[in-house]
């Protein structure tokens, strides 16, 4: 073996921790897909918007990164809901390719707006947590990543509880399972869509606050994370909540192990290879998609 056990242990730890964040990114996307069959190609750019909000609060406002949740979550909810209401809702009945092109256009706008406003340089926020680490056997755990993992898990549990136990959550699930029946049962489907899109985007607000302490912010940061969340969502089955969580961990581990074995950014090719193979051979995902 030309790589050490220590390195693999480290990859395992990093993979799981990052995988948790990937899971949170993807839960939002899969929720939106499950409810209204839209692939939001601006998903990663929404995250980027959230990360800039958090970065400026932390770096310029001196906020604690985790307190920024109070701002990032509502901001992303409003941004998501407003963009949905103004652009996506009017063409919900159009062919799915039109929606894809529209969200691609949105991602171009947001990405380049960030470029115009903040330049291309990656911004790194130094926080009190950024450098804290502890060792776990042979591996080193970075505390902000651990917090991100825990926070993502908590957010996913909260969202799951919301979908299962509240009236609004039941309405969202009803609309995703059978639109017509939901309408007949008195569910206001358009409002439910708006809510689902807002919540799907708000997940990215949570992710943004959790990521800024250990990840740089740049106009193109959403490109990679957006693609990762597509990979995870397809892997877990489009619209499958639990599948997105498991898929997030799988891709997190794939990336971490790939980076341990392969030089440079070549490990990312692995992620795409898995993606393409799953799309070809199990387009319903490893765990099946949501019921229509």
């Amino acid at each position, binding site marked *: 073996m030309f790589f050490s056990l220590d390195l693999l242990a480290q990859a395992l730890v990093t993979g799981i921790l990052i995988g948790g964040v990937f899971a949170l990114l993807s839960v939002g996307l899969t929720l939106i897909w499950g409810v209204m069959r839209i*692939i939001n190609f601006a998903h990663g750019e929404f995250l980027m918007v959230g990360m800039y909000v958090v970065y400026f609060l932390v770096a310029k406002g001196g906020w604690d990164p985790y307190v920024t949740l109070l701002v990032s979550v509502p901001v992303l909810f409003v941004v998501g809901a407003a963009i949905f209401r103004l*652009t996506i809702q*009017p*063409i919900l009945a*159009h062919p*799915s*390719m*039109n*929606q*894809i*092109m*529209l969200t*691609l*256009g*949105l*991602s*171009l*706008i*947001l*990405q*380049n*707006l960030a*470029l*115009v406003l903040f330049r*291309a340089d990656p911004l790194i926020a130094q926080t009190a947590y950024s450098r804290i680490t502890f060792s776990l056997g042979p591996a080193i755990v970075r505390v902000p990543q651990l917090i991100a993992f825990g926070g993502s898990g908590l957010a996913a549990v909260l969202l799951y509880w919301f979908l299962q136990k509240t009236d609004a959550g039941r309405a969202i699930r009803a609309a995703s399972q059978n639109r017509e029946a939901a309408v007949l049962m008195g569910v206001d489907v358009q409002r439910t869509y708006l809510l689902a899109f807002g919540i799907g985007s708000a997940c990215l607000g949570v992710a943004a606050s959790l990521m800024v302490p250990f990840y740089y912010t740049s*106009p193109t940061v959403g*490109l990679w994370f957006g*693609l990762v969340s*597509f*990979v995870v969502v*397809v892997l877990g089955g489009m619209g499958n909540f639990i599948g997105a969580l498991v898929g997030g961990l799988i891709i997190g581990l794939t990336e971490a192990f790939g980076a341990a074995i392969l*030089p*440079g*950014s*070549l490990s*990312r*090719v692995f992620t*795409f*290879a898995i*993606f*393409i193979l799953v*799309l*070809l*051979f199990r*387009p319903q995902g490893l765990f099946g998609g949501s019921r229509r």
Partner: protein
Amino acid sequence: MNKYTIAFLAILLVVLFLLPLVAGEYLLHMIVLVLLYAYLATAWNILGGYAGQHSLGHGVFLGIGAYVSTFLFIQWGITPWLGMWAGGAVSALVGWFIGYVCFRYGLKGPYFALVTIALAEAFVYLTSNVDAIGGAKGLEVTWLGHRPDMMEFDGKAGYYYIILVMAILGVIVTRWLYRRRSGYQWIAVRENEDAAEALGVDTLRAKIEATVLSALMTAIGGTFYAQYFTYIGPRSVFGEGPSVQILLFAIIGGLGTVWGPLVGALVLVPIAELARAKLGGSFGGAHLMLYGTVMVLVMLFMPKGIIGLAQSVRARLTRRAANSSPSAKEAA
């Protein structure tokens, strides 16, 4: 075509061929960009517009065309005039493979879009890590001076003539295919695949054909891209960015129409280039914001593009004319 159309096209051709005699370098550069993007969008339109399979990864083919010819050029001094066919052949092969695998397993709509965008990004990371082709830094085309045999020219006129011929050929090829068996089969696949299958169309074959042709044409555009801009890098030719730019003009001009890509590029590229020239220093990316905005507006208000809008306006006008003419007769 009636004789007025033919006369118009003949005059247009003469004007286009004499243009470099009067146009300045900047205007010529603008027209080269218009023609390049029109040509690339025309190539994309064969698969995306006619056969209805929306690829979000045409950067793969653009990049292959650019990289193959440039590598052959700087490594062994092989002229890009040959390199473009080598790149085209490799790209066609890759296109065949992608088409075969995707369509064999019945990928369509959003799923095909996702696979192609993933491929485009995968190629970015693949090429970034191969040092023989410049890694993340990319490749620079060696400047040998004014060498038409090496597709290198002083000034813009030489490049202008090449891309003009390519764009004209692109339009001729699509127009020709439009009226042929292949074109009808692609449109049948796009409109209703099951029905096409039931009528005996080999839909798999039709879709692969469209992919291969589209890949070949895009790659030849890639060689031109490399020679014109003299620098290529993984992000500048393979990734999501160039992939979206290729399809943009076809969508905005009018999906699945012969003239849509040209109209789209003709309307948008000059505005975007002016925005880039005026704001580029302080606001890099302003022109891409403009593209994004137009794309959103087109999807919201005129999903059939500029050509589609023009057609529906004309239809309304003829209907109005038809309605009003009887009353006009009565009045007389």
